[in-house]
């Protein structure tokens, strides 16, 4: 052991006894309580100034009991305060609603996930990584099924701009000597821009050295409306929805 005098008792977590309610009335009550107690900081889940709750893996709440504890007791050392005036039952209702923001409910979807996986390898894996395989030009989709509903996945395939994930904008930079660099914009500040090519190579470019900088405001992913047959879209949705990152 390295330092007994710095022992941190990390085992004494209060384990809550109840469970997340799943019925519609409780979720509706949880939504109402959320809007009153939580939305001031968390917005609709992903547009507040506090932590983004539209995330299947909440860092401080990996389990339902830990989510209950975070709502009830807050997170020490942060702005996340303990709940005020809510009963344990109401806290469970809020927790149940928060979980629906970040995790899609498992459901049966039409389409063949195996065929969808094959289509994914052909059409998508050049840019997207799944479980360690694939490209680097778009988000890792290993748990996309836990984040999105089948309908949302379908919409994103057909219209890539329907739901843009921040942090993946494409940048095209023309340098003073006429040479060009393009890739994912990973940083931009007053004086410089950083671009990662598909190979993984990173360029840090002083804006003073660039003749022109274009950053896409739209998704660099093509929209597949009318490009791929409906049954293939269904297969892709079935495959993507099956990717739940172990949840």
């Amino acid at each position: 052991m390295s330092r007994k005098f710095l022992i941190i008792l990390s085992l004494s977590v209060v384990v809550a006894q109840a469970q997340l309610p799943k019925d519609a009335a409780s979720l509706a009550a949880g939504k109402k309580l959320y809007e009153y107690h939580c939305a001031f900081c968390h917005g609709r889940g992903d547009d507040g100034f506090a932590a983004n709750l539209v995330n299947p893996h909440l860092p401080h709440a990996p389990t339902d009991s830990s989510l209950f504890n975070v709502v009830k007791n807050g997170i020490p050392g942060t702005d996340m305060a303990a709940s005020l005036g809510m009963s344990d039952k109401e806290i469970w209702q809020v927790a149940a609603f928060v979980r629906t923001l970040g995790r899609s409910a498992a459901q049966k979807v039409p389409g063949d996930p195996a065929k969808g996986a094959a289509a994914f390898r052909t059409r998508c894996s050049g840019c997207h990584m799944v479980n360690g395989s694939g490209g680097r030009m778009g988000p890792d989709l290993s748990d996309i099924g836990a984040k999105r509903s089948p309908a949302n996945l379908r919409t994103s395939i057909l219209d890539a701009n329907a739901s843009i994930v921040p942090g993946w904008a494409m940048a095209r930079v023309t340098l003073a000597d006429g040479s060009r660099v393009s890739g994912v914009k990973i940083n931009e500040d007053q004086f410089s821009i950083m671009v990662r090519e598909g190979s993984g190579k990173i360029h840090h470019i002083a804006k003073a050295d660039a003749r022109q900088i274009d950053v896409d405001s739209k998704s660099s992913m093509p929209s597949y409306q009318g490009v791929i047959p409906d049954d293939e879209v269904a297969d892709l949705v079935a495959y993507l929805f099956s990717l739940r990152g172990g949840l």
Partner: protein
Amino acid sequence: MRLSLRIAGLSLALAAAAFSQDADWTTFSGNTLGHRFSPLKQIDRTNVAGLKPLWVYQIDKTDKFEASPIVRDNIMYVSEPPSDVTALETRTGKVLWKYRRVLPDTLPVCCGKVNRGVAIEGDKVYLGTLDAHLLALDASTGHIVWDATVAPYQKGYSSTVAPLVVKDLVIIGSAGGEFGVRGFLAAYNKDTGKEVWRTWTVPAKGEKGAGSWKAESYKSGSATTWVSSTYDPELNTLYVGTGNPGPDWTGGSREGDNLYSDSLLALDAATGKMKWYFQFTPHDVHDWDATQVPVLADLPWQGAARKLVLFANRNAFYYVFDRESGEFLLGKQYVRQTWAKGLDDKGRPMVAPGTEPTATGNLVYPNSPGATNYQAPSFSPLTRLHYVMTRDEGGLFYTGDDAYHEGNWFLAGRFISKPGEDAKAAIKAMDPASGTPKWEYPLAFPSWAGVLSTAGGLVFSATGDGDAIALDDSSGKLLWKFPTGGRPYANPVSYLSEGKQQVAICIGHAVYAFGL
């Protein structure tokens, strides 16, 4: 290589292993030999006074920041508590990507939610996690490439060690020595994440050494491997130190020597098979893990060149071994101790009577944190000195309940610092030939920082109260300091950033990068 030719006594192959990547810092200790020595010398004794901070990167956690950064091709990969990784540009400190792990909400960890660093090879960055997984991340995005479960965290296992890449293997150690786990060192294929070998550090029934444990006590024998191994490519041998036997402070339930706790193990890197071992503290009841970095050096020994391993131990003795045969060559007290009358001619301690923990507290030197601990040492092939962060303090040791409950604390006692006595501390420049310090730089407070030496004639470290410092490697004279105001728990590194030398260290909750 240019530098290596000037170093008499070092074989060319060893030197190549040591200095092939001058510009970068690609393993925990800078090379696999455990030297934590940088061949860079843009920053030297004549200009170090002008060293200044170039950038500071602040983490958003309050756990201790113990990481030793890795640097390759102008990118720094630094692990953050609890089990996260950030990639930074070394020129500006700008973030390139972050990996954030979601951990179980009940984690049995003894000493903070910490991590000591990542490893890198090819297009992958490797991280051991507090829930005892080994991850391969894509080096350019931080995406998970593979995720291997190394051990069940529910039983008390965790991983805090910086992995080490050896050929096509990633070597990962275990932690959890305060929870009665059975320790091991394991190797995984670097591309697939499949386990290749696992060497248990506590023998099972019927195996060699099993008789050193009473009854079934081996099952909770600990002997974990929570500080990075070192590796000799010529001998294809790994050297790893093991931790305390479990439980920590009451030894009645585990009578015997308790192999291979508190030991240095030499393992065949391809198979994990043990070549030899040396146990520093048989039947330890003071929590003196031998989890210090074994330093591999080729030095003249009594007139002939010899492959050595140097080991400044937590139990207050300094050791030198032949690393091919395991022969004990030297053992000498280097920090105050009262627990042993000395070492016999095989290196076994002659334990002083009446030094075991008691129900009312027994005063013994050194204290449980030891003469040194996980602070990484440094060896300079130029001065041939072994620089070690040391601590001098007595402790009162108490026995306690030694019942074992899976996944729970298994301490059976406690310790406190000797009341009314301030701990002393010093950076000591040990001469391996004599086992005595050539110089000492005293510190007002103990420090958990490691030590870096450079070809610029400098030794970098940090004081316990948060000053980054540079000393003359030959005299110990203070040449530079920068007050950070934080507490250090990490090891300095040095590398080139776009051709310019930097020295970086994590202090408090930030990475500081210094340059001229």
